């Protein structure tokens, strides 16, 4: 059971807003009637009624029936991918440039957003979707910048999916010609597989991690469009080979755009922002 609203649906993702302690929305709420398992239950009950009228009791044995193979050839992630394409279509129609920020926990996703949002805000409206298992800590930090933000708490979930983003977008007052930053759950594995409808995937690594990260988590780096190496102000204090890391990343994905920044000192941010502004213009 959910401790906030007492409803039976304690599992699944929850949307929260900073400064609105009463606001709390289960992602599965609005779609519950449409989930296949639910319609399935309805079918099931009607099947039972039919069975009863035909006088088929519980003594019926499975092996009396026949077995049949049905070809599906259906993409396992189809449901997510279709919804992600709907999100993408919505973003494109309204000229909303959506970025999906991915990294391991603690590489500086939120700090990077805190740094770039004030610089971008004068030029383009910005909104943020924050993904974490628990707390609104990150959304609170973004809220302090005065931009619209919503927190998705995934509970036990290890990644954001297209449905969570779809629901979050409905709760955010997004403007046309704006930038939407989606900060995924800190995790270099699972979020790689789930398209959210973003224009670009941005993977962030920091110099306090190993320079072999791209080789260890190749799926994420293969899926990403750009890679931002963060915390370069710490380079004098850590054993991190920037050139080697870049080479590793390029081996996994030769289309990857590469940037080196320090969200803390601001070093390198101008180069990336220049690139981002160009992309926004052509969007």
């Amino acid at each position, binding site marked *: 059971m959910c401790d906030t609203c007492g409803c039976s649906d304690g599992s699944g993702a929850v949307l929260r807003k900073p400064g609105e302690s009463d606001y709390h929305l289960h992602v599965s709420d609005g779609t519950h009637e449409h*989930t*296949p*398992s639910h*319609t*399935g239950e309805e*079918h*099931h009950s009607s099947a039972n009624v039919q069975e009863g009228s035909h006088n*088929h009791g519980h003594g*019926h044995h*499975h092996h*009396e*029936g*026949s*077995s*049949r*193979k*049905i*070809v*599906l*050839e*259906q*993409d*396992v*992630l*189809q*449901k*997510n991918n279709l919804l992600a394409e709907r999100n993408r279509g919505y973003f494109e129609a309204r000229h909303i440039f959506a970025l999906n920020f991915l990294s391991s926990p603690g590489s500086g996703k939120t700090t990077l957003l805190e740094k770039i949002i004030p610089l971008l805000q004068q030029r383009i409206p910005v909104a943020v979707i924050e993904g974490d298992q628990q707390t609104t800590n990150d959304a609170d930090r973004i809220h302090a910048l005065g931009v619209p933000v919503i927190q998705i708490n995934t509970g036990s*979930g*290890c*990644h954001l*999916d297209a449905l969570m983003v779809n629901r979050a977008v409905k709760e955010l007052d997004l403007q046309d010609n704006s930038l939407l930053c989606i900060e995924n759950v800190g995790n270099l*594995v*699972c979020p*790689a*597989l*789930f398209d959210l409808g973003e224009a670009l995937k941005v993977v962030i690594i920091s110099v306090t991690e190993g320079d072999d990260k*791209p*080789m260890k988590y*190749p*799926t994420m*780096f*293969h899926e990403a469009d750009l890679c931002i190496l963060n915390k370069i102000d710490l380079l004098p204090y850590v054993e991190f080979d920037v050139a080697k890391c870049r080479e*590793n990343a*390029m*081996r*996994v*994905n*030769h289309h990857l755009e590469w940037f080196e920044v320090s969200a803390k000192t601001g070093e390198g941010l101008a180069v990336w922002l220049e690139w981002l502004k160009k992309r926004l213009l052509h969007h």
Partner: protein
Amino acid sequence: MHEMSIAISIVEAVETKAREEGAARVSGVDLLVGKLAGIEPESLKFCFSAAAKGTLAEEALLAIEEPEGTGECGECGMTFPVNFYYAECPGCRSLRIKIISGEEFLIQSITIEEEGE
């Protein structure tokens, strides 16, 4: 552990199809999971049995075929087996490799049991 949410979506898709076909239960599910799909088959099997509890697919046997990865060189056009995304062309050493197979992730077929009259 994205395998759990994936297992749930497999069970949902399988149950939907099985009900459409009027199945009494599902006895088999055949998956195609490429070696480069980012899915751990053993973990998926474990999650599937948990996700299938109380559904038509509760007793279904999950069979997973794992096609090998194949890369195509962007320089010389050679195709060759790859295990990783960071493959190198064995012909010309180029790193411009396009993955042409091994990323498949499909529910190929299901086997349903129908109640005999």
